[in-house]
């Protein structure tokens, strides 16, 4: 349940923005979460709502945008979407670091992000 510690960081960060910018009535917090992180969106949303509910940003919604993974192959110069592993026992397809073109090892260039993109509020 590392989602709880991430949710706590989100709430803390939003509260800081609220107090430094003097805003109120936060409606939506938008996140970007990379496909290569192992952050469960549903659990994160639940943890966020539980924690935010005890603060002045109670009732605000968490919107999570999935950032697709991208890999770069040092062997064949391929750059783009990763190869997915359909034998993995997961609810969704699992991105791998195997090059879709030549089958060798690639490096991830995108998909590890976990960040607040924007905070929406009403005045």
């Amino acid at each position, binding site marked *: 349940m590392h989602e709880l510690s991430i949710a706590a960081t*989100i709430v803390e960060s939003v509260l800081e923005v609220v107090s430094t910018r003097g805003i109120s009535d936060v409606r939506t917090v938008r996140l970007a979460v990379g496909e290569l*992180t192992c952050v469960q969106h549903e659990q994160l949303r639940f943890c966020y709502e539980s924690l935010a509910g005890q603060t002045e940003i109670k009732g605000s919604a968490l919107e999570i945008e999935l950032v697709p993974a991208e890999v770069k192959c040092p062997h064949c110069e391929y750059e783009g979407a990763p190869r997915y*592993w359909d034998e993995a026992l997961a609810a969704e397809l*699992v991105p*791998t*670091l*195997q090059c879709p073109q030549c089958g*060798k090892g690639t490096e991830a260039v995108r998909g590890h992000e976990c960040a*607040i993109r924007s*905070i929406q509020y009403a005045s």
Partner: protein
Amino acid sequence: MIPTIEASPAEIYDIELEHSLLAANAELARKNQELLDQHGITAIDIMGAIGSGKTTLISKLAGKLSDQLGLAVLNGDATTADDVAVIAEAGAQVVQLATVNGCHLDANLVGKALKRLNLEEVNLILIENIGNLICPAEFPLGSRSRIVVVSVTEGPYMVKKHPHMFLGADVVVINKVDLAEAMGVKVDDLKADVHKLKPDIRVIVTSCRTGQGIDEVASVVAPQPSV
């Protein structure tokens, strides 16, 4: 229908941020790494499920390596007094890290532990992470490399079930292979699964009971001689 009054779009404002949620930990990890580099210390993060044999592997490594170099062990996992005794007997400094109910170590805790060690006497630090194959993946600690230990007693599907952990690993140890036949687990299949996720990764097959593969793990974790 219940009427709802929504603020009109003109009254809704956006604050654009690019605020990384893992940055605080990543920054502390970088500081740990810097401190370790200053002292010429190599740190290795050892991850794996409960019962995969992390502690036993560490005590075997301690037995092999502590004559040759200054070894310290940070125990993040619940470790029995027996394990600590074996590791300490081998001559290693041991610091126990209590996360209470936390499911992963973080760079802050490791940074505090580093302050408890006499770094002048240490060349290698083995960090035993919490027994968990999911959460530690997102929290680098400042180690040079990350080893995932998976054992055949966890069944044939550990890689298929926890792919993320292997994507972030530098070395995979498949442990307890002396029990593979009894468990009906094919070690080659586990290996093939790992390589489907990460083709270049080094996989070492071990048994802490028979001693198979322990020398190879020791050679991987030992600091590279400086050129």
